[in-house]
C-alpha cells in the first residue's frame, strides 16, 4: 500500500493527469448530462402521450368491437435508464407503434432523426466517448510509465537500488488504474446514478446493470492502459512509445471496428427487411382470396353440421376473423422471427469479432448490459404484437360470442374498452443480459489477459 500511495503521490503531481482528467470529466459530464436531459424530456413526453392515448381509447364512442379494434391506439417504448450512457440500438429503432386490427405496423420515429451535430461527429454518447477518447487518455497516462523514466534516468536509479521491476510495474499500474477510476469510473457512476434515480425503470434492475456496465468500461480502459504500459516497457524513448501506442489506437479503435462490421456483414449477412415484409404480405394475400374464404366458411358450417350461417351457435364473421388472424400471426411470427434470428446471429458474430479489437467487444457488451441492444428492441416488437393480438382476440371473442341475427350490429361500450389493459413493457431481465454478455465479456477478458501476459516478459527484461 505504501508503494501505491507513493506512486499515487507522484502521479498526482503530474500536470498531464490534471489536464487529461479535467478534459475527460468535462466531456463525459457535458455529454452525459445532455443525454440525461433528453431522456428525461422523452420520458415525460411518453408519459403524457401514453396517458392521452389511454384516455382517447377509453373515451371512444360506443361501436362495434371490430370498429374499436380498427380505432386502434399508439403504444410507446420507454427508454432504458442506462440509454443515457449507451443508447445502443435505441436511436436507430422505432419508438412507437400504432396498434390496430389486421395491421402489423412498424415501429416508427427513430431518435437519430433528431440527432445534432455532436452525434453526427461520432461523439454523441457517453459510450462513444469511452470507446474512443478514454483509450487515448489511458495511452497518454501510461505511455510514459517507463519510457520517460528511462529517458530521464530515474529508472536506472530505481532499478540499480533494488526496486524489483515487477513491484514497480504493479504499483505504477495500480496508481494509474486508480487515476482512471477517478477520471472515468466516478463520472460514469455519477451520470448513471443520476439516470437511475431520476427515471422510472421498473424491471430494469438498473443498479446492478449500472455497476456491471461501469465495470466493463473500466476493463476496456484498463486494456488500453496495459497496452500503453507494455509499449512503454519496450520502447527506447517516450516519443517512440507514444507513437506506437497511438498507432495501436488507430488500428484497434478506428480501423478494426470498421473491418469487423464489414466482415460480419460479409460472412453472416442479415435478411433484408424489405424481403421479409414482401414474404409476410405474400403469405397474407394467399389466405385472403374470396375463394379461400368460401372454402373456409364451408368448412366451418360442415364442422358445426349446419348449412346456413344463421344456424350457427357462434357468429361466422367473428369466427372467420379469428381464424384469419391465426393464419396471419403464424406467417408474421415465422418471417419476422427468421429476420430477428438473422440479426441475432449477426450480433453473436460481431461479439466474436471483438477478437479483432477490444472496442468491438465493448460495443457488444456495453449495449447488452445497458439494455439497449437489439434483443430489447425485438422484445418490444413482440410485446407490442402480443398486446395487439390480445386486443383483437378480445374484440373478436366479443363478436363471436354474441351472434347477431337479421343484420343487427353488435355495439359495445366503455366496459369492454376498460377490459383492455394499458400497454406495459417489462424489459428483458438482467439475467438474460448477463447470459447474452458472456461472449463479449469473455473476449474482453481475453484481451486483458493477453495484454497482461505480454507485459510479463517486458517486466522481466526491463532495463534502464
Amino acid at each position: 500500500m505504501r508503494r501505491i500511495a507513493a506512486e499515487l503521490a507522484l502521479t498526482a503531481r503530474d500536470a498531464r493527469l490534471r489536464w487529461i482528467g479535467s478534459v475527460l470529466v468535462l466531456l463525459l459530464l457535458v455529454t452525459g448530462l445532455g443525454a440525461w436531459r433528453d431522456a428525461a424530456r422523452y420520458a415525460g413526453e411518453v408519459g403524457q402521450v401514453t396517458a392521452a392515448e389511454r384516455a382517447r381509447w377509453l373515451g371512444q364512442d360506443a361501436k362495434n368491437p371490430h370498429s374499436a379494434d380498427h380505432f386502434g391506439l399508439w403504444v410507446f417504448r420507454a427508454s432504458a435508464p442506462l440509454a443515457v450512457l449507451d443508447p445502443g440500438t435505441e436511436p436507430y429503432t422505432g419508438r412507437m407503434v400504432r396498434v390496430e386490427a389486421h395491421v402489423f405496423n412498424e415501429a416508427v420515429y427513430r431518435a437519430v432523426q433528431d440527432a445534432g451535430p455532436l452525434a453526427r461527429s461520432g461523439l454523441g454518447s457517453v459510450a462513444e466517448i469511452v470507446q474512443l477518447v478514454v483509450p487515448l487518455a489511458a495511452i497518454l497516462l501510461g505511455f510514459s510509465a517507463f519510457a520517460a523514466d528511462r529517458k530521464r534516468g530515474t529508472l536506472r536509479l530505481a532499478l540499480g537500488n533494488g526496486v524489483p521491476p515487477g513491484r514497480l510495474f504493479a504499483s505504477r499500474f495500480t496508481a494509474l488504474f486508480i487515476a482512471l477510476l477517478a477520471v472515468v469510473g466516478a463520472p460514469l457512476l455519477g451520470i448513471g446514478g443520476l439516470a437511475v434515480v431520476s427515471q422510472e425503470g421498473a424491471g430494469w434492475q438498473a443498479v446492478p446493470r449500472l455497476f456491471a456496465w461501469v465495470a466493463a468500461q473500466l476493463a476496456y480502459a484498463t486494456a488500453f492502459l496495459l497496452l500503453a504500459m507494455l509499449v512503454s516497457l519496450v520502447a527506447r524513448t517516450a516519443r517512440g512509445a507514444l507513437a506506437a501506442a497511438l498507432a495501436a489506437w488507430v488500428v484497434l479503435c478506428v480501423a478494426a471496428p470498421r473491418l469487423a462490421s464489414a466482415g460480419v456483414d460479409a460472412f453472416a449477412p442479415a435478411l433484408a427487411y424489405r424481403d421479409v415484409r414482401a414474404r409476410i404480405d405474400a403469405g397474407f394475400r394467399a389466405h385472403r382470396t374470396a375463394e379461400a374464404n368460401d372454402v373456409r366458411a364451408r368448412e366451418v358450417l360442415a364442422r358445426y353440421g349446419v348449412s346456413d350461417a344463421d344456424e350457427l351457435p357462434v357468429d361466422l364473421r367473428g369466427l372467420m376473423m379469428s381464424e384469419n388472424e391465426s393464419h396471419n400471426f403464424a406467417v408474421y411470427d415465422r418471417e419476422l422471427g427468421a429476420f430477428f434470428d438473422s440479426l441475432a446471429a449477426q450480433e453473436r458474430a460481431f461479439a466474436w469479432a471483438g477478437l479483432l479489437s477490444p472496442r468491438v467487444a465493448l460495443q457488444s457488451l456495453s449495449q447488452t448490459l445497458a439494455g439497449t441492444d437489439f434483443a430489447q428492441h425485438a422484445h418490444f416488437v413482440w410485446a407490442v404484437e402480443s398486446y395487439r393480438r390480445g386486443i383483437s382476440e378480445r374484440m373478436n371473442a366479443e363478436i363471436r360470442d354474441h351472434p347477431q341475427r337479421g343484420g343487427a350490429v353488435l355495439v359495445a361500450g366503455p366496459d369492454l374498452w376498460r377490459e383492455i389493459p394499458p400497454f406495459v413493457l417489462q424489459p428483458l431481465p438482467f439475467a438474460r443480459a448477463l447470459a447474452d454478455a458472456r461472449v463479449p465479456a469473455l473476449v474482453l477478458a481475453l484481451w486483458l489477459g493477453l495484454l497482461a501476459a505480454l507485459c510479463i516478459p517486458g517486466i522481466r527484461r526491463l532495463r534502464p
Partner: protein
Amino acid sequence: MLAIRGATKRFGDRPALDGLDLSLRRGEVFALLGPNGAGKTTTVNLILGFLKADAGSVRVCGIDAGTDPIGARRHVAYIPEQVALYPGLSGVENLRYFATLAGLDLAKETAVALLAEAGLGREAHRRPAGSYSKGMRQKVGIAVALARQARLLLLDEPTSGLDPSAAADFSVTVRAAADRGTAILMATHDLYRVREMADRVGVLSRGRIVEEIAPRTLDHVGLERLYMERLAGGAA
C-alpha cells in the same frame, strides 16, 4: 561480496570486457580506474544485471547476476554518474519515493538525516528537485544508496559534479560505509579521490585489469604516473 570470473562482453565486433577477474571483500573499497571506453560502466552494468556476460560469471553475495539480476540487485546500492530525480518532488520526497519502492519504510526524519549526511543543505530539502544542480542531485543519489544499507555499493563516477568540499565529504561518507562493512566498487577517473578512498585500485584497459595497485603506497604523482604507464602498456 562480489566475484567476477572471466567476464567477457562484446558489442558487435568490439570487445568491452575481455576475461575480467575481480573480487571484493566485505568492508573493502575497490576503484576501477580507466579511460573512457575501458569497460568501467560495462562492468557496473554486468554487476547490476542490466547486461549479461557473453562468457564468465558475475556473482553478488553468491547470486549470479546474469541469471538472477533482481536477486543480485537486492544486495546492491548504486549511484550512477548522472543522478536523475523526479523534478516535481523535493529531495526528501525523491529519497522517500525510491526507498519506498525498494521496500523500505523511511521516516521523514530519517530521510532528512540521510540527506544531511550526504551533504545536501537543509534549505534544499523541500525545494523541487527540478531546481537542483548536478551536485545536489548527486547528493540525493548518495542518500538513496545510503538508505538501502546494502552489502555492495556501486559508484559510477560518484564525485563527478561535486564541488571539492562536497567531494571531500563524500569521501568521508564512503569510508564510513566501508567501515560499517559495506563492500564498495567505484568506477572513476578521479585519481585524487581514489587515493583517498580506495584500498585497492584496478587499472582497466581494453576490458581487462592490467594492474592492481595499493594506492596508499604511492603519492598522488606516483599514482598518476603508474596509471599512465599501465594505460600506455595496456594500449600497446
